[in-house]
């Protein structure tokens, strides 16, 4: 627990691609009733990356946004970890592309992270450890995805694209990370085999024994350790595979819908996988005030959750958050495409 040496978020940045496809258009393509889908999933539309966007480009945009909000010399970023389940290469890191694009190379530690939707928050934990151990002045953790869903599968309504970057350090911290813990088991609720294009999942098995069990356990463990109750928090951000689960898990834990609202982006941009919890946190930081307390619990299939107890410092008021796009602006900056264009962008039609 960092008491005298405050470790936390020094800056943050987000990126969501502009294209959107409405759930109703996807439903109509597959002969499903749009209202049933939208009411059931709580997702109105999702973000779609264009052909020339991928996890590398989204990560670079988010990283550059984070740098735009602070005065950090990119050469002082000593580590970059990019977490995703749709890295452009199976072998060749995304982190080096980001490192070159922001001018942080060559004195830089890089590795790519994978843990379904919580790869980015795992990267945050590693950056915290590096800073605490004095092995990095600043570390950058990025969670970003352009996940594919099999055409016609239920996941198609949610799997979207987006990412967020967090610069972790112990100087000029705008939001201190008081404590972090994880809850991990070997639970095969959702997976993708090597070489396959689309993931598989266990249907209803992904609910109670997977998502809910890990988020609830991890969050409870954190609150027990830190000695807090749900009402101590201004905001709660949970992983958002659809628009309903985060509200339900919040209720199970004793959080209110109001606490969850600011960080709940899924209804507007879908599930950005490794970007989800981190974009939710970015959305909260866009409006947070000094003293605000934030709970973040991510979830990654396979399975595990990372929880963070965060307190916003007075340094956030010194930051000009408008120097990079706010999450609300990224959500509003949109252009609709139809299913045919979506199929072309997401490479659903081509074959070797």
């Amino acid at each position, binding site marked *: 627990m960092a008491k005298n040496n405050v470790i936390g978020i020094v800056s943050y940045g987000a990126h969501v691609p502009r294209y959107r496809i409405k759930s109703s258009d996807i439903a109509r393509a597959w002969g499903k009733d749009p209202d049933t889908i939208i009411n059931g999933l709580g997702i109105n539309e999702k973000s779609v990356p264009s052909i*020339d966007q991928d996890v590398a*480009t989204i990560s670079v945009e988010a990283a550059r946004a984070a740098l735009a909000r602070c005065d950090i010399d990119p050469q002082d970023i000593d580590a970059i970890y990019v977490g995703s389940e749709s890295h*452009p290469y199976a072998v060749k890191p995304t982190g080096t*592309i980001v490192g*070159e694009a922001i001018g942080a190379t060559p004195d830089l530690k890089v590795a790519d992270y994978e843990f379904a939707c919580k790869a980015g928050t795992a990267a945050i934990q590693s950056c915290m450890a590096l800073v605490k151990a004095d092995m990095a002045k600043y570390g950058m953790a990025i969670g970003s995805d352009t996940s594919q869903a099999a055409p016609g599968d239920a996941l198609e309504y949610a799997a979207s694209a987006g990412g967020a970057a967090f610069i972790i350090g112990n100087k000029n911290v705008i939001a201190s990370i008081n404590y972090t813990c994880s809850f991990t088991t070997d639970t095969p609720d959702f997976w993708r085999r090597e070489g396959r294009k689309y993931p598989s999942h266990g249907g209803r098995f992904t609910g109670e024994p997977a998502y809910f069990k890990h988020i609830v356990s991890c969050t409870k463990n954190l609150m027990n350790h830190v000695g807090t109750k749900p009402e101590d928090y201004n905001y709660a951000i949970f992983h958002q595979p659809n628009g309903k689960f985060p509200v339900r898990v919040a209720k199970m834990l004793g959080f209110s819908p109001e606490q969850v609202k600011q960080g709940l982006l899924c209804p507007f941009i879908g599930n950005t996988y490794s970007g989800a919890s981190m974009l939710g946190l970015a959305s909260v930081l866009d409006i947070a005030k000094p003293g605000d307390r934030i709970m973040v619990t991510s979830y990654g299939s396979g399975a595990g959750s990372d929880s963070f107890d965060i307190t916003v410092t007075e340094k956030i008021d010194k930051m000009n958050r408008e120097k990079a796009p706010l999450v609300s602006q990224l959500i509003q900056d949109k252009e609709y495409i139809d299913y045919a264009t979506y199929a072309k962008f997401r490479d659903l039609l081509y074959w070797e």
Partner: protein
Amino acid sequence: MTDAAVPRFWREIPQRYNLIANQCGVCKKVYFPPRESCPYCRRKSMDKMKTIKLSGKGEVVTYTIIYDAPEQFEGQSPYPIAIIKLDEGPKITAQIVDCDNKDVKIGMKVQSTFRKIQEDGSVGAIYYGYKFKSVK
């Protein structure tokens, strides 16, 4: 591009990712991509070329919408290609993104952004670099 030489495009990463240019120490003219010496000052400029990073801000001086695209760009057509005059002086050829084809205009102000340029098929390398989006 099938047997693309990876080193050939690796060398230009500073240019494609960060618009790294250079400037003649004598006449101050800016060159992108960087040149070994200034064509106007020639030997006087040797060893006096200074590396600089361009802002990525510029203006469209001409453009076209490409309909008949090469294989690597097929999925994107029709797309706009423009010659952009950057604020620092040099002109550059690049795609315009995040803009309706019918809204691309001569005189439009643009800003560089980081995108995937092309891939060497499904097994070769992926090349990233600059494209430009319109700014208000």
